[in-house]
C-alpha cells in the first residue's frame, strides 16, 4: 500500500470521523518495500501539492523511520531541475496558453526534490503491518500490501 493512499484514508469508525485525531492513521510495526516505477510524473507531482496534508505526511514518514521531510512542502518550482527551468521561463513568457504548457512540461526535468517526493508518495509501500487510529486506538491490519478496514460492526 502506497503512502499517498494514506492521504485519503481515515478510521472507518463513524464516530471517529469528526475527531481530528482519526487522521492520519499511524503506521505501526510496518515492513516496507520500495517498488520502483518507471518515471516521475512531474505534472502530477506539481498538481498534487495542494492536496497533500503535509504535516500529516511528515508524521507518517517519521513514524516509519524514513528520512525527515522538510517542515514546509516544496513549491512547484522546487520540483523542477534548475538547469531545465531557465529555458522554460523564456518559452513560458513568449507564448502563454496550453501549447506552451505542453511544451514546457516536455522540457522540464524533475529535480532531486521531485524524485524524493515521488519515492515517498508512490514507491514506498507498506507490505505488512498495522495502521492505528489516533482517536480510538483501533488497529487495522495490512497484509500482503492490502489494508483491511472491515470492522465487526460492518459484518452483521
Amino acid at each position, binding site marked *: 500500500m*502506497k503512502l*499517498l*493512499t494514506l492521504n485519503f484514508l481515515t478510521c472507518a469508525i463513524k464516530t471517529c470521523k469528526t475527531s481530528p485525531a482519526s*487522521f492520519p492513521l499511524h503506521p505501526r510495526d510496518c515492513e516496507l518495500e520500495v517498488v520502483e516505477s518507471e518515471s516521475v510524473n512531474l505534472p502530477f507531482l506539481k498538481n498534487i501539492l*495542494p*492536496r497533500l496534508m503535509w504535516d500529516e505526511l511528515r508524521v507518517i514518514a517519521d513514524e516509519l523511520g524514513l528520512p525527515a521531510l522538510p517542515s514546509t512542502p516544496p513549491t512547484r518550482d522546487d520540483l523542477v531541475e534548475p538547469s531545465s527551468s531557465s529555458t522554460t521561463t523564456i518559452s513560458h513568457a513568449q507564448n502563454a496558453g496550453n501549447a506552451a504548457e505542453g511544451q514546457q512540461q516536455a522540457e522540464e526535468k524533475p529535480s532531486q526534490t521531485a524524485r524524493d517526493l515521488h519515492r515517498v508518495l508512490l514507491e514506498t509501500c507498506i507490505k505488512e503491518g498495522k495502521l492505528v487510529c489516533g482517536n480510538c486506538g483501533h488497529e487495522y491490519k495490512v497484509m500482503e500490501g492490502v*489494508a483491511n478496514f472491515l470492522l465487526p460492526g*460492518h*459484518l452483521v
Partner: protein
Amino acid sequence: MLPTPSTSHVCFDRVYEPAEDSFLLLDTISSSSEAAFLRERFHEASSTPPLILEVGVGSGVVLAFAAANASSVLGRHDVLTLGTDINSFACKAASQTVESAIKDFGCKPSVFLDIVNCDLASAVRSHSVDVFIFNPPYVPAELPDLSRHQSFNTLPAGKESTTFEQDSYLLELSYAGGEDGMVVANRMLEQIPEILDEERGVAYVLLCAQNKPEEVKRRIRDWGPGWMVETVGSSGKQAGWEKLQIVRIWKTAA
C-alpha cells in the same frame, strides 16, 4: 473504442466476472456526452488532480478502464485512482487488473493508489472523492450471512485454495442486494454526500429495473437543494423498461 482491460488472471469462482453491467459502466463513462461533462468539470490544468473512487471493484475491470483511459475521459493524465471491495480476493485481483491495464495501454495513465479491503467507502476521508463509481450487488435476493465474513475472506488456515462454500458466499456478496436489491446500494447512497468533493464531486451508480430506479432518483432529489440525478446510460430494453441503467448524481450551486 477504448480498449477493455484484461481480466484473464482473475479467478471467477470467487470474484465477480465482468458482465453486461460492468460494460454498461465502461461505455457510459466513456460515452461522448459523459466525457464532455467530465472534461468540462475537470479539464482545468491548474486544478488539483481529481480522485476517482470505485467501491466494489470486483475484477477491477471498471477502475482499470478509468485508470488507463483517464486522459481521454477526464482530459488530463494526473488523475488518481482508488478502489475498495469487501472481498479480499477481489482486492488483490483488481490491483493486478489496474496495474496491467496501465502498463498495457495507458500511454499517459493515471496514478493508481491502491485497492483497500473495506465496507463501502467507510475508510475514505470526507469530501475527498471527485468521481465516484459503484456497480452494487443489485439483485433482489437475500443477503448472505456476514457473520461468516472474517473466516471466508482469507484462505482457510494452512490451505492453498478456497472451499466451495466460501466461493459461493463471496459470489453471493457480489450480486445479492436484499429487499428490492437496494439494501447495500441504499447504505452507499447515504454516504455519497459525505464523501463527494463539495464543489466538483460526481457519482455514477448502476441500478436495475427491480431497484425501482424512479423512486431511487426521487429520494436523491430530496437530499436537499442543488442535488441532481439523471439517467445517463442504459441497456437491455425489456417490454419498454430499461433492464439496467446508470444514474449520474451531482450537486449544482443552489
